Each structure stands twice: as C-alpha cells, then as structure tokens.
C-alpha cells in the first residue's frame, strides 16, 4: 500500500512555482522550418516572404532567417503580421531586423485590444556586420496586459531572425517511472533498483547459488573418493597439500616413483620393487608371491632350478641309513655261549659291542680276533688304513694332499696345514684364492635394490629422452647440479652411514655395480672418496670394509689416503675407481692398482716427459724405503708386468749375443 501511494504521489504532476519561459524562433528546424508555434507571415505563394540562409553574413542573422520585402527597395509598404501563441500570456517580444535601408514601424496588439506602435530606424550607411537592430518590447510591468501579436510595416527588403517571446509558465515535475520503481523498491526492502534490475539480480543470485551447490557436491565427491583412496576425509586441494608434506620419492628400477602415506604402509613399495627385480630377471613384472603361486606359467616363463636358492633342511641321517635302533630289553638279551661267539664274524655284522650290554668278563675278544686272523693287522693293512685316514683328513682339512709320506707326519707339518686352513678361511684367505663368489642375477638385483634403499638422496634425475633433448648448456647445468647434490649428500653422511653404503657395495661386488643406475655409481664413488679422506676417523672394522671395496689390504688403506694428498695419479685413481671398475666388469681381479696403471699410462701418452721428471720429495727417498709407499696390490701388479718384460729382454739379448758369436 505504501508503495502504491508513493507511486501515485510521484506520478501525479504537482504545480511548481511560476517561471519565465523564453521561446525563440530561429527557423533552425531543418531547411528553415520553425521551432516554435509563433505564427509568422506565410511564405507560400508569397514572393515577398522567404525563409533562407542566403544573407547569414549580415550581422544578427544566424544561418536561416526570414527575408521580408524580398528584392524590393522602396515603394509602398507592406505589413507583416506575427501572431503569438494564445496559450501563453506573452509579456515581452523581441526580434532582430537587419539590412533595412528605409525606416519602418512595428505595431503591438495587446490582449485588451490596445496597441502600441514604435518606429524602426533605418540602417543605411552601416556596414554589413552592424546593419541590424535588436528590437525589444515588454509589458511585463503592466498588470494583466499581454501581447497577442505584432505587425512590422516596411517598404525595403529587410532580414528578420530570432523572434523571441517571453511569458510566465507553470512547470510540472514528472518523475521517471524507473526512478519511481527504484524508490519504491528501496522503501520496500532497502535496495535501490528497478523491477527489471531486481529480476536480473535475482537471476544472478540463483546462478551463484547453483554454482555453490555444484561446488559443494564436487567437494563431497572428492572427500568421499579421497577417503577411499587415502583414508583421509579431504578435498583434492587439501590432499595435494598433505601429500606434498608426506609423500616420499623412491627409485624403483630406473624410475622415480612417488608414494603417499598409505602406500608407504601397505607394502606397495615392496611389491613395486619386487616387480622391478622380477621384470629384469624374467621379463615379467610380477611380485614374488605371484611367482611362487606359479603365475609365470601364464607368460610361458620357466624358472631354472639352479637359479633358485632354497634352504634345504638337514636330512636326518637315520632316514638315509634306515637304521633300526633296537632297544634291547633285559629279556631280549641273547646269551651266547663261547662256542657260538667264536663262530660269529663280527666284522661282517659290524656289531658294535657295548660293554654295558655284554658281559665282558666272559668274552675274550682279543683271543677271538686272533683266532680269526683279525688281529694283529698286517703292515700292509696298517698302511692302507693310514692312507685312508690321511685322505680323509686331507679332504676335511683342505690341506695339501699331493705330499704323501709313509711315516706319520710331524706335528709341525700338521700345524702348518692347520695354519693354512685358518688363513684360507679368513677374509684375507678368500682374497688370496683365485675363486670368486659369483652372484646370480637375482641376487645381484636384490643387492642393487638394497643399495638403493641405503642411499636416500633427493635428486632430480632426468630421463634418457630428456637428456637427449638438452642443449649443451642445459646438459652442463644438469650435470653440475647433480654433482653438487651428490657432494652435499655425501658430506652430510656420518662415518657409520659411509661404511653402511660400502658394506652394501661389498655384498654386490664393485664390478656388479654396472647393474645399478649411473647416479648410484656416482654416489658410491663419492662415498669411497669420502671414506678415504676420513680414514683416520674410521675404526679398524670400518677400514676393513673400505679395503674390501678397493680390493686392497687393510694396512694399505692408510697408505692410499696419504698418497692421495701428494700423488695426482693415485688421487685420480681413487676418484675414478668405481667408474673404471664398472667399465671393466669383465676383467677378472680388476683392482685399484689396475686403475693406477691405466691413469699412469694415459698421463704418459699425454705428457711423456712429465711422467719421468715429476719428482716429489726426492731427497727423502733412501734405498731402504724405496717402495714403502706402494700398496701390496701395486707391488704384485708391478711384479706381474716387470718380471716378464725383463726376462724377455734378457733372453733376447742373450740370443743376440749368441748369434753374433756364431757369425
């Protein structure tokens, strides 16, 4: 109701205070058309009245104007009547008249039928710009007197423009309907808007609400899906944030795989690693459990039994020999008389006679054996028995069985054999033998995976395809960044962690590191260098591990560490040991000494003179300590090479001298 009343109030025009209204006839309604309702002299069929813009150059004329007494100069005068609008009470009239050479007059007729005649002076002698006059006639100060019309009387061609009338008018205020709506709506619910705008606003609000509903539904779906996948009630955005903090990146095979929290705890990592290993071994990505239940058959893959290591249970000897242990109870004892015992070939039955079971006092076994020619044994029998025993000892003690003696061996010999056994049973002994424990492919893959577990480093590794697409600069940057990351990782390792990595390397063998990725090899190399640098801080056991990696003796590790500081060749050999060992994986017994020799050879090729004249602390060398700074491994290698060369030279010299002597 309030809105209705307000609208009606605003729509109904309300009188306002009276204003002075001015209307000006300018003939600018287009082609000289009028713009007011002042009745002007007719122009149709009237040669004396023309509306034109020909003489706008004259002062007072603005574009279109009226031409009175057109082309007439002098003669009889003519009247030109201008009737003012009757719906107005005009109290003032004005017009501009120009180019009037002869005097004229104007008569104003009032509403009370009275008139007023005024003279219009001639304008001859003036220049064109000033040849005009603004005529104004007003009765405003006369109460209730208004002007109805005026008549201009002239006999000379004149120009007229800007006929102006003034009257008092009542202005009405009519509000815009849209404004009415806005005001009504504002009064209703406080928003200044039209009904149309309200409709648009409501539509937009509904769209926004629909979008919010859709978003909520999507979030609910995300939360439900993530709950099933991750176990957390979270949106996708929240999941990304959480996983950034909890995810881990592990290298499986040659790829980096990201595992979330749930996958870390449900065994996915182990299964993926098993798949990777088995894919390398059998060409099929299956877990160990799947292989055990026989899924390989589905892919036509057969496992050779030799590759499988199975723990075998110790077989009970009784099952093999099928011996029946007869527990003799008292009543089962068979009492043999002496005659019966004599007839028994005890050896044939291999009966062990327990003193508890048999009444010894009544049996003279020695006598029995003598009478049966079983005792005493002949010399030949004694020798045969001793030989058998010796052979058995040789087999069990791994001694030198090529040496046979008729007499019993002295204790010293036995002691030596025992010592040899002890040596060969230690780590030192193992390295002394030519036999190398070879791992199967599966065992190598398992050991490689264990190394990767020990080495936990966050490093960006590019795939082969990405590396191929790198420019030279990008490749250099990538390599430098990788090297820097490796150095930082290694420097942060404790001695225990360094040794842990080296122990894993020993398990697999340095030359089997070819199965690991290039990055793992680089890391292992850096760890080896770190171990050599920090050898003084390592325990004896840890030094042994380092020695095993470098395939040198334990006491030579410190030697190497000292030599690294002074000798560039040895320092470079330590830096490149892993890389060269992997490259020469097919070379048996490839050790640090081989690397040193290779680098010496390369430096000799590069600069032969420097190799021979590179003296370092020459004054400290004496005959007694020559070679003390060489490792045993290096000495052995030198012997292997130098001795044959020297012998060959001696033989060739001898042959040469012999030939010359015979000539």
């Amino acid at each position: 109701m309030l809105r209705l009343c307000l609208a009606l109030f605003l729509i109904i025009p309300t009188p306002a205070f009276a204003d002075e209204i001015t209307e000006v006839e300018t003939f600018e309604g287009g082609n000289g058309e009028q713009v007011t309702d002042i009745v002007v002299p007719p122009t149709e069929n009237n040669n004396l009245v023309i509306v034109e813009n020909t003489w706008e150059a004259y002062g007072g004329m603005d574009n279109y104007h009226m031409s009175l007494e057109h082309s007439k100069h002098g003669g009889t005068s003519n009247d030109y009547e201008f009737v003012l609008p009757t719906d107005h009470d005009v109290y003032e009239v004005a017009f501009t008249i120009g180019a009037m050479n002869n005097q004229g007059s104007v008569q104003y007729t009032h509403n009370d039928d009275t008139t007023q005649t005024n003279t219009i002076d001639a304008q001859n002698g003036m220049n064109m710009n000033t040849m005009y006059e603004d005529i104004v006639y007003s009765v405003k100060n006369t109460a209730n007197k208004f002007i109805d019309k005026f008549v201009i009387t002239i006999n000379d061609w004149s120009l007229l423009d800007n006929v102006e009338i003034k009257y008092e008018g009542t202005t009405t205020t009519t509000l815009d309907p849209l404004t009415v709506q806005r005001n009504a709506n504002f009064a209703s619910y406080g928003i200044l808007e039209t009904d149309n705008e309200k409709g648009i606003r409501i539509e937009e609000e509904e769209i926004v609400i629909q979008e919010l509903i859709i978003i909520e539904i999507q979030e609910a779906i995300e939360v439900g899906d993530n709950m099933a996948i991750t176990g957390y009630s979270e949106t996708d955005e929240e999941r990304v944030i959480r996983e950034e903090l909890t995810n881990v990146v592990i290298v499986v095979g040659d790829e980096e795989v990201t595992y979330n929290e749930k996958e870390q705890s449900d065994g996915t990592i182990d299964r993926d690693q098993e798949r990777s290993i088995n894919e390398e071994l059998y060409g099929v990505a299956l877990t160990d459990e799947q292989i055990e239940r026989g899924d390989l058959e589905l892919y036509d893959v057969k496992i050779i039994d030799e590759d499988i290591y199975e723990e075998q249970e110790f077989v009970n000897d009784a099952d093999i020999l099928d011996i029946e242990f007869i527990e003799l109870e008292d009543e089962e004892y068979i009492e043999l008389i002496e005659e019966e015992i004599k007839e028994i070939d005890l050896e044939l039955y291999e009966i062990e006679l327990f003193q508890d079971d048999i009444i010894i006092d009544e049996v003279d076994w020695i006598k029995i054996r003598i009478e049966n020619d079983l005792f005493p044994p002949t010399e030949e029998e004694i020798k045969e028995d001793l030989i058998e025993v010796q052979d058995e000892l040789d087999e069990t003690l791994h001694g030198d069985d090529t040496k046979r003696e008729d007499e019993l061996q002295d204790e010293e010999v036995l002691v030596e054999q025992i010592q040899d056994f002890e040596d060969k049973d230690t780590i030192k002994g193992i390295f002394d033998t030519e036999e190398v424990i070879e791992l199967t492919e599966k065992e190598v893959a398992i050991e490689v995976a264990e190394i990767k577990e020990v080495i936990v480093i966050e490093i960006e590794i590019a795939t082969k395809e990405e590396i191929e697409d790198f420019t030279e600069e990008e490749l250099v940057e990538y390599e430098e960044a990788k090297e820097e990351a490796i150095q930082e990782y290694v420097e942060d390792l404790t001695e225990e962690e360094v040794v842990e990595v080296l122990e894993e390397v020993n398990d697999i063998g340095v030359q089997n590191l070819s199965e690991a990725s290039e990055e793992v090899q680089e890391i292992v190399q850096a760890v080896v260098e770190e171990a050599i640098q920090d050898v003084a801080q390592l325990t004896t056991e840890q030094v042994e591990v380092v020695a095993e990696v470098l395939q040198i003796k334990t006491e030579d590790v410190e030697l190497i560490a000292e030599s690294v500081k002074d000798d560039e060749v040895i320092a470079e050999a330590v830096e490149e040991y892993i890389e060269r060992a992997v490259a020469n994986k097919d070379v048996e017994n490839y050790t640090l000494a081989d690397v040193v020799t290779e680098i010496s050879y390369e430096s000799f090729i590069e600069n032969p003179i420097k190799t021979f004249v590179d003296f370092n602390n020459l004054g400290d060398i004496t005959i007694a300590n020559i070679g003390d700074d060489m490792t045993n491994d290096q000495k052995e290698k030198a012997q292997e090479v130098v001795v044959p060369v020297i012998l060959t030279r001696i033989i060739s010299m001898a042959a040469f001298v012999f030939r010359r002597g015979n000539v």
Partner: protein
Amino acid sequence: MFKQLGNWFIEAIKETLNLSWTLVGLVIATLTLTGSAQQVTGLATILTLAIWLLTIGFRK
C-alpha cells in the same frame, strides 16, 4: 765442432733405437710403479740413457 756434434747426434739416435726394447721395458716398469719407486726408476732410466749416449765414443 758442429760436424762432430752432428755426428754424435746421429749416433745417439741410432743407439736409442738399438735400446728400444730396453726402454720399452723400463717405461712399462715406471708406469706400473707408484710413489718413490716410480720416481727412482724414472730418474734412473733418464740418467742411464743420458750416460749411455754421452759415452758412445768412449765405449767404441
């Protein structure tokens, strides 16, 4: 004098070539050794070669 020097130089080259196999053996020995042993061997090789070449005339 220059002629003598030239003759000596030619003789030195001949002797070095005669010693090729020996030098190969010594170079190999030097490369397989490290540390003080390598230095001593290298020094001995150079000095011996130098003395050998310088005493060509004396030994003839």
